[in-house]
């Protein structure tokens, strides 16, 4: 398959061995190397405290790296804020807004602080959602506040939109509406999205790229299609997994007296007919990675292979 229409030579977000340490509290992020191609809607998943917020804050220049580097649309967010900030849209956790401002005030806020500002776009969107312009932001529901925060970020006409747990505190209907707005914005083109979440359920339909962060390290990063293709569940009679492990990466293994189940990342074909090969849901893949103890040596090779395959066109 060729994705000619998507420009994969330019990356919206590039990190190289990105690390952040907080004084004596330890590493919030270690050696994160990522290449997020343009036009993707990427999910950043991991348990709380895994480093998702740290990664996002490093990308928008709210934090500066302890080690390594980060580039957003080609610029360094910490050293080149003037070039970076107009290109990004950011909604921090709990969608901070000025509670005493009216919705219209918030739009004025955005207009005054951003040279590239599409007021009409924001107005139309808010109108369609039925959000009253004169009401104080503090009086809106959680879902409406999230929509206002999103409208603000999108009205900046960013190239990269970063969202920190945008749907965590929303009820299911508000969640769906938020994602609908996000998808409609993406459909207009020219936008790359990175959103973090510790809930995986809603993300599969909305995202086409996945980054798994656990214990402050990147465990997996790549196109979701490719991940679904490369990860399979092998079910068969009770067996020693060494033969399989010599070729493929075993992510999770479980045994009963009569049966062995392996979740593997394939590095080729399964020839042994005693294994039944089943598809795995994205959620189960993520859970398997998150359930693993801290990263071991074999994943480095596997990880870079997956990142590399995500760079070129996948087939």
């Amino acid at each position, binding site marked *: 398959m060729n994705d000619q229409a998507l420009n994969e030579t330019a990356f919206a977000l590039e990190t190289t061995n990105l690390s952040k340490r907080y004084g004596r509290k330890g590493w919030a992020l270690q050696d994160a190397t990522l290449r997020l191609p343009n036009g993707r809607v990427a999910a950043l998943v991991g348990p709380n405290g895994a480093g998702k917020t740290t990664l996002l804050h490093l990308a928008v220049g709210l934090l500066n790296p302890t080690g390594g580097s980060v580039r957003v649309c080609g610029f360094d967010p910490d050293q080149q*804020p003037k070039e970076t900030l107009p290109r990004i849209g*950011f909604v*921090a956790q709990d969608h901070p807004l000025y509670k005493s401002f009216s919705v219209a005030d918030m739009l004025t806020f955005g207009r005054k602080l951003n040279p590239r500002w599409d007021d009409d776009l924001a107005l139309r969107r808010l109108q369609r959602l039925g959000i009253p312009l004169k009401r104080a932001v503090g009086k809106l529901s959680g879902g409406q506040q999230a929509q206002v925060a999103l409208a603000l970020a999108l009205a900046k006409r960013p190239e990269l939109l970063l969202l920190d747990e945008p749907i965590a505190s929303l009820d299911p209907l508000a969640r769906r509406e938020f994602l609908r707005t996000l998808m409609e914005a993406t459909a207009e083109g020219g936008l790359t999205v990175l959103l973090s979440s510790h809930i995986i359920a809603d993300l599969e339909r909305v995202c086409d790229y996945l980054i798994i962060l656990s214990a402050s390290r990147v465990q997996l990063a790549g196109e979701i299609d490719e991940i679904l293709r490369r990860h399979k569940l092998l079910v068969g009679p009770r067996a020693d997994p060494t033969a399989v492990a010599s070729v493929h990466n075993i992510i999770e293994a479980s045994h009963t007296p009569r049966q062995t189940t392996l979740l593997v990342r394939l590095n080729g074909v399964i020839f042994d007919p005693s294994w039944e090969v089943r598809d795995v849901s994205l959620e189960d893949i993520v859970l398997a990675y998150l359930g693993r103890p801290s990263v071991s040596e074999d994943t480095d090779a596997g990880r870079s292979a997956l990142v590399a395959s995500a760079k070129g066109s996948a087939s």
Partner: protein
Amino acid sequence: MIWVSSRQHRAETLVVTLVLAILAALLLKTGLDMASAYQQLGIGACLAETRRSQTCNTALYAFQGGFSFAISAIVWLNVLPALLGLFVGAPLLARELEQGTFRLAWTQSVPRLRWLEVKLALVLGVALLASAGLTALLTRWFSPLRQFGALYFPLTFDFEGTVPLAYAAYALTLAISAGALLRRVVPAMAVTIAGFVAARAPVELWLRPRYLPPITLTGDPGKVDAMVPKTDWALDNGWVDQMGHQVHTGAVLATCAPGQNSIDFQGAFAQCTHAHGWLMSITYQPADRFGLFRNIETAIFVALSVALVALTIWIVRRRIA
């Protein structure tokens, strides 16, 4: 950014403007009353008399009594810079940090240092302008009292020239930097009060009398006090013996003016002290130094303010997520 800053601090600005307006009105009213009373009672002529007549004493008594409340109330204006710091300075950064809205403000298209620069410039600019206006008003208000010499000295020093502006700048920058460091409004307010008092009190009470070494004159009562013009700032009044050792004032009074409420420095009292070899000692700062002192005190608080601004910039640049 001007719109954003003024909208963000709309509430505080309104309150401060209201307070200043009320203050200005009160000052105008009492100032005009005082000036006209001064004229009508002929205070100026009275003060010029070397030996006060009875009518003059009555007039002086009436004047000072009539306005003693206003004058003592003026002293409370010393808290104005602290209030400015509390209600405008403390929330400036602390509120954004406490509520997390800095993550919204600093990811628009304005880099955070520029955002800080503009806010600082706006807030300090407006505060200094308001201080200057108020100072001008107070300087006019004090003009009748200035004829009394240095009697009301600390007041006229604190509210004159560039000094009040320096106080305001200090209180503001202290509050803003406390907010940046502590990231919570209420603790920043506490630090502002403490820091303001901790600087103002020692400087005024201990440093100011010593900006230049004070002059000490000793001599017979009635002569030496005449040598110190009333415009000068008397720091200390005491008694020494021929060898320069201090003599307890209580002992002198008990010996030479027992049971008297007011002492005439001429006559019997002076003969008595002379007989005992006691000299009156006056330590003072001459009025021609006041300009220099004002400049020194201004410089102290401006230096503090500059250091605090630098601290704020450093904190915002490196230490906040």
